[in-house]
């Protein structure tokens, strides 16, 4: 599949779509093709020309922010690893693993599928990225924690890892340097909470997937108590290109926004669901109408979740908001994973929120009270409202629950994430909730039933 034509076209986009230009979902590039396409140049540069500290400086300077949802600056995250501050050797001492790198590939956020695209489409890019990151934080062991359902990705990653070992990009004395790196693929047993980095670490250790209290942060006490950095697939995938083309190039990709490109996605009631690598900061309108083809026929936009299930609803009034961390936050939501979930006006927002909350209640790890009992309680109330047996008191109880599960009150961000769509839905779609209670039924279903009923009669 790696005919020159394809490669030529791909390489033409290397500087504008660094993350995805080499993606080939049908048959990802094998080691040689990847190298032929310019792969492992970033890693070569890092290992041969940079000390770990210099890589860190470069990445910090690039302004790369985490693409897993929180948008935390990657360089800053790395700089918290104690070994870095103490001894920045030109060649990392390989005798003992001082720290670990973990790639968070547990992509379970509803409406989000960008990492899968990279994992299945260009696995070597991730491996190259992890070599760079591991080298920077003095890690001799790295792990890919992969969502269990991503079995195609698992196959392709394992093949790529094997190739990397064969070609001395992994194992002892990487490319003739003193640096040693072993990379392991771990497929998750499947819990949403494993996307939380400390729960992921616990799961990787074979413990219950429960988030840890911070501090200490994983950079200090992570996997098996050792300094550990957990980065998202997409975040890491930027590294080879930053190494290759420099931080200035990276920043120039999106001059008016957060640096770099972002893989945006759209799903739900749009004409053309999918994902697109675009400069950071395109507007929602551009994404929804230019790329996703606008709403499905006959539907008006009711609302959308900008970055996965755990972000606040935005509505038509926010269409011109740029999709970057700050702008979306100003609009009252979060960029999250940058995957739009779009709701049309013919579908019940209460039902949608109930669906989302059921997911969160199901995926609560059960550690802290607000999340464990609060999400389930919200589901109980929403179920009744949706079924038409809700009361006004239920609405105020839902408000109470939103307050109860908010940030700072829970052990991790799962419950606040669940609150985001619920609270915003109750704000933007208040009348829908009220109608359910007043009419004793879901008006959307009534319409649907009436239509059905008419056809049957």
């Amino acid at each position, binding site marked *: 599949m790696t005919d020159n034509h394809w490669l030529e076209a791909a390489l033409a986009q290397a500087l504008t779509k660094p993350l995805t230009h080499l993606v080939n979902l049908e048959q990802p590039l094998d080691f040689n093709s990847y190298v032929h396409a310019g792969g492992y140049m970033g890693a070569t540069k890092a290992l041969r020309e940079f000390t770990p500290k210099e890589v860190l400086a470069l990445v910090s300077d690039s302004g790369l922010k985490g693409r897993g949802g929180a948008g935390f600056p990657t360089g800053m995250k790395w700089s918290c690893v104690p070994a870095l501050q103490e001894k920045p050797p030109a060649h990392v001492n390989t005798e003992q693993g001082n720290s670990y790198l973990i790639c968070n590939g547990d992509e379970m956020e509803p409406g989000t599928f960008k990492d899968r695209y990279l994992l299945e489409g260009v696995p070597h890019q991730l491996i190259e990225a992890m070599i760079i990151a591991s080298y920077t934080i003095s890690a001799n062991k790295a792990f890919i924690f992969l969502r269990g359902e991503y079995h195609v990705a698992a196959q392709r990653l394992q093949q790529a890892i094997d190739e990397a070992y064969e070609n001395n990009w992994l194992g002892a004395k990487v490319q003739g340097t003193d640096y040693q790196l072993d990379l392991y693929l771990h497929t998750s047993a499947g*819990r949403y909470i494993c996307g939380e980095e400390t729960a992921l670490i616990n799961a990787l250790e074979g413990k*219950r997937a429960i988030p*840890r*209290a911070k*501090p*200490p942060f994983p950079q*200090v*006490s992570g996997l*098996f*108590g050792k300094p550990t950095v957990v980065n998202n697939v997409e975040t890491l995938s930027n590294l080879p290109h930053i190494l290759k083309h420099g931080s200035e190039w990276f920043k120039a990709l999106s001059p008016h926004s957060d640096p770099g490109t972002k893989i945006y996605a759209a799903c739900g009631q749009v004409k053309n669901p999918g994902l697109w690598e675009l400069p950071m900061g395109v507007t929602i309108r551009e994404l929804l109408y230019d790329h996703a083809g606008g709403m499905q026929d006959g539907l008006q936009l009711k609302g959308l979740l900008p970055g996965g299930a755990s972000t606040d609803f935005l509505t038509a009034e926010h269409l011109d908001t740029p999709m970057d961390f700050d702008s979306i936050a100003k609009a009252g939501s979060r960029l999250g994973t940058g995957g739009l979930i779009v709701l049309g006006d013919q579908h019940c927002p209460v039902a949608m929120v109930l669906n989302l909350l059921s997911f969160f*209640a*199901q*995926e*609560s*790890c*059960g*550690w*802290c*009270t*607000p999340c*464990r*009992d*609060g*999400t*389930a*309680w919200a589901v*109980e109330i929403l179920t*009744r409202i949706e079924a038409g047996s809700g009361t006004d*008191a239920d609405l105020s*109880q839902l408000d*109470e629950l939103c*307050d*109860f599960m908010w940030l*700072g*009150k*829970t*052990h991790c961000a799962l419950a606040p994430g669940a609150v985001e769509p619920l609270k915003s839905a109750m704000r933007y779609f208040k009348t829908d909730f009220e109608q359910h209670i007043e009419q004793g039924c879901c008006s959307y279903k009534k319409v649907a039933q009436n239509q059905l009923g008419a056809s049957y009669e």
Partner: protein
Amino acid sequence: MSDNKKPAKITIFIDDNPYQVSADNNLLAGVLSNKLNLPYFCWHPSMGSVGACRQCAVTQYQDENDTRGRMIMSCMTPVIDGMRIGLTDKASAKFREQVIAAMMTNHPHDCPVCAEGGECHLQDMTVMTGHTSRQYCGEKRTFTNQYLGELVGHEMNRCITCYRCVRFYKDYAGGKDFDVFGSRNQVYFGRQKDGVLESPFSGNLVEVCPTGVFTNKLFSAHYTRKWDLQSSPSICAHCSVGCNTSIGERYGSVRRVMNRYNHDLNGYFLCDRGRYGIGFVNTSSRIRAIKGIKTKVGEPLAGMFNEKSFSKAMAEHSGENFIGIGSARASFEGNRLLKYLVGRENFSLGYTNEEMQLALRHKQLLAQYPQQSLAGMENLSRRGHGELPHDLVLIIGENLEQTAPRLALSIKQVLRNAALDKADSIGVKHWQDAAVRTYASDTSTPLFSLQTQNTSFDDMANGALLLSPEKITTMVERLTKMLHDDFAHDTVVPLNKQAAEDNQVRQSKLDKSSESHHVDKNADKFLLLLARALSQASAPLIVTGLSLKSAALLSAIDDLMACLSHKSHRIAPELTIVAPECNSVGNLHFLTEYSLSIEQVLTRLVSVNSSKEASKEVSQATSLVILEQDLAQISTEQLNLLRSHCKSMIVLDHSENKLTQLADIVLPVAAVSESGGHFVNYQSNLQAFYPAHIAIKPIMENWQYLVLLAKGLFAHAEINFTSLKQLYSFFAKHGEPWALQVLTYDESKQQQRIVRQTHRASGRTAMMANQSVHEVQTYFEDKNSKEEMFSYSMEGASATSNHNMPFTWAPAWNSNQAILQHQQEVNGELAHSQHENLLNLNLSAFFDETPSISLSDKLEQLWPNQLGPNQLCPNIAQQTSQNHAVVLIQNLPWFLVEQQSKKLPEFTLMFTGNSITMSTDLAEQCGCNAGDIAKLVLNKQHFFAQLNIDEKLSDDVVLVSVFELDMAVNNCQIELAQITKANQDEAATHAQAEKSRIATASKEKADTLVRLKAQDQTIPISFLNNEGEQYD
């Protein structure tokens, strides 16, 4: 022993008022230390913080001008000088109520039928947050409960998912068969499948659980509310640790034992033997009538006690001369009085010659090495205040989980010292439990263990060897020699590679020396490793005990301690010696050169019978008074010999045993729950226990019977005490320091008597409402108890006004968590502080008088043991040809090793069957395979057990776990030929016996319950008055 160095205090502002808090604990502990009400669930004062329940939220403000603040979990927040928090602010108060509301979505409304009701932390916290009405309308989640054994009940629907149970069972106590399962609001705490909880600490789940998920099954079966219990402060009688307990009684029967906080000893936790073992006082094995004395009309003197008949009967024996045999499970006072009555030349501790020598060695070591409290071992009073925590643990020849389970639990915490130190290195506070365990999960304080049998510590040990008792002694001697040589040459045992060669030289030396010792290479490796670790350690802890009955071992350990303690080594070793029974160390006080061994008692009795030419003094001894003594170490045959040579045998005991069967007169004395006195624990700490109720006569406290005997048998007119206080005054007047000590210790406390009953008893006309509603004149009050510190009433000083708290309670805190309201600060000493009341063990008699003779020679002179260790007891070996000699090691589980608690039917039901364990070689020699039924012949008695193989066992050791074997056989030599394969008939009989043991225990359990419940309904009011004679 308490540390005067107080932890640094800083000032924080709570609702704008300044408070002093400890800098090294979290905010929640600081708030609670100031006796402010802040609810919590998942945090535990001893187990630290994990931040799960979110109940202890407060608002933190930046400064005086910050009015919004942000919410924090106080248990997860370190205190900072000047920090400002809000406790009563609307936001955090509302959130705390919301947490309860959320927990209540699944908590059933079954408080009226829940065993926890009335002392439920969840109830308290619910009220504290003001949550009074339910908003949740949905269905509640339900679970299937599990059978967790005889001791702990399980009702998962009540669970509020605080994770305390699993944190205690797994993390704190090291249990492996209990865990947390599932997720979201379906989290389940239990076992993988139904089955008996394996940990000897499972009963703590009852106290650790903030609500009624885990309940005390024995208490639930014969249940009463906490507020209806009459309680007393007691001391556990089931091992030498002396854990402080609170015994609860109602309608004349003991209902339960709860932990009684003692900062220095048990802290918040008991072992299950201590918690449940007390049930023996309710079983049918109790002696409730005087045996051997007839009344005028020829009836046995049962039921009421009639002093006239008693005195008359005693007068018949007044011409005889008595030897008194005390015991290590009787109170200190009982032993003292008995010794006074018979005189020191006629007093025996019930020890054999061998045991006398052992006891003296024990006494000598105690005098030399002050024993640390459990808190001292765990470094609880010192953490963070400069002193060194133990950095190595060496356990020698004592299976702690059998003989002193609570101490074993403390050792498990000592093993965390290294992890805590590691946590220090990244600034993780010790109370951040999850963070410490995450960061330092692989770090454990070095542990070495030299044992005869597998123990629960083997997994954690850097080195663990199983050897015969004799070889353990040799190992200790060799270790001392190695260390001595190293220290002498100033060559600390090599640590690095370059010194490996030295090692080899040493190794070859050892190889040569080991030829004679026949210790294999494993042992050499172990020794090298241990010697290296010891020379690196700065505060090693050595733990041993008397289980192996080896005076040689104690003396070898003495040498080891001496070597380690040498000033120049900068090592501060500590030695802990586990004593055999609850008052063994108290007995050491009475151990003088005049004390008689059992052999000497027998000799005297025999000489009276066989020869009239014996010396006057000896010929006078004709009879025995035996106080709460089993003489379990000697065989039935020998007991009969003893019996046949004494004119009369008067036994004072509370439960049936072999001696009560043989005695002429049996006087039923009160068990620990019905009597007062002191036990002296392994540290030689005199600890007082008080009766929870007064038993119905003729059961009386041991000293009361001894006072009667003083009149009737011994013509000691001066012994006429009607209270223990008078007894103390008497001995104080005689210049006995301990008595003065006890008196001053008591006097330091307030004068008003302390209540045993709860406030609810103010409605005392209703206390007997099942029969009559009328004023029962101060329940159980009689003239004897007027001088006691505690009253059988709710009137008087509060139960918590003394460190000996009958029960724990504080306004708004009805559960055991109320204890935090009575500590000086969280985890600190009690507000009415306690200090150890150490007994001075005087050794002058042995060292000062005849300095020319070595101690061992002197001991051999006093209590000759030349016939070898098995002179009296284990004449068990049938032949003396030592060709195939093996050593028996007692290996009963923790619930069957102590004679009193063994009588609890529930413990019998927990026993999985007799077993004998040995190596493959030995099994082959016996002609047995694993799983066969083996026959063990001891003293013409046959015992049957399933044969197990354990490759790790030493080739000269056989572990026996045989229920019926009530002789103390630890470290007895037998011929291997005494173990054979049982034939088919014998195996069938054995299977039948095992079944019938279970059936008997089940019946005993059921019958006891029926009897107690009947007693609840029919207990005559007159009995309560306890003046039996007037109602004849």
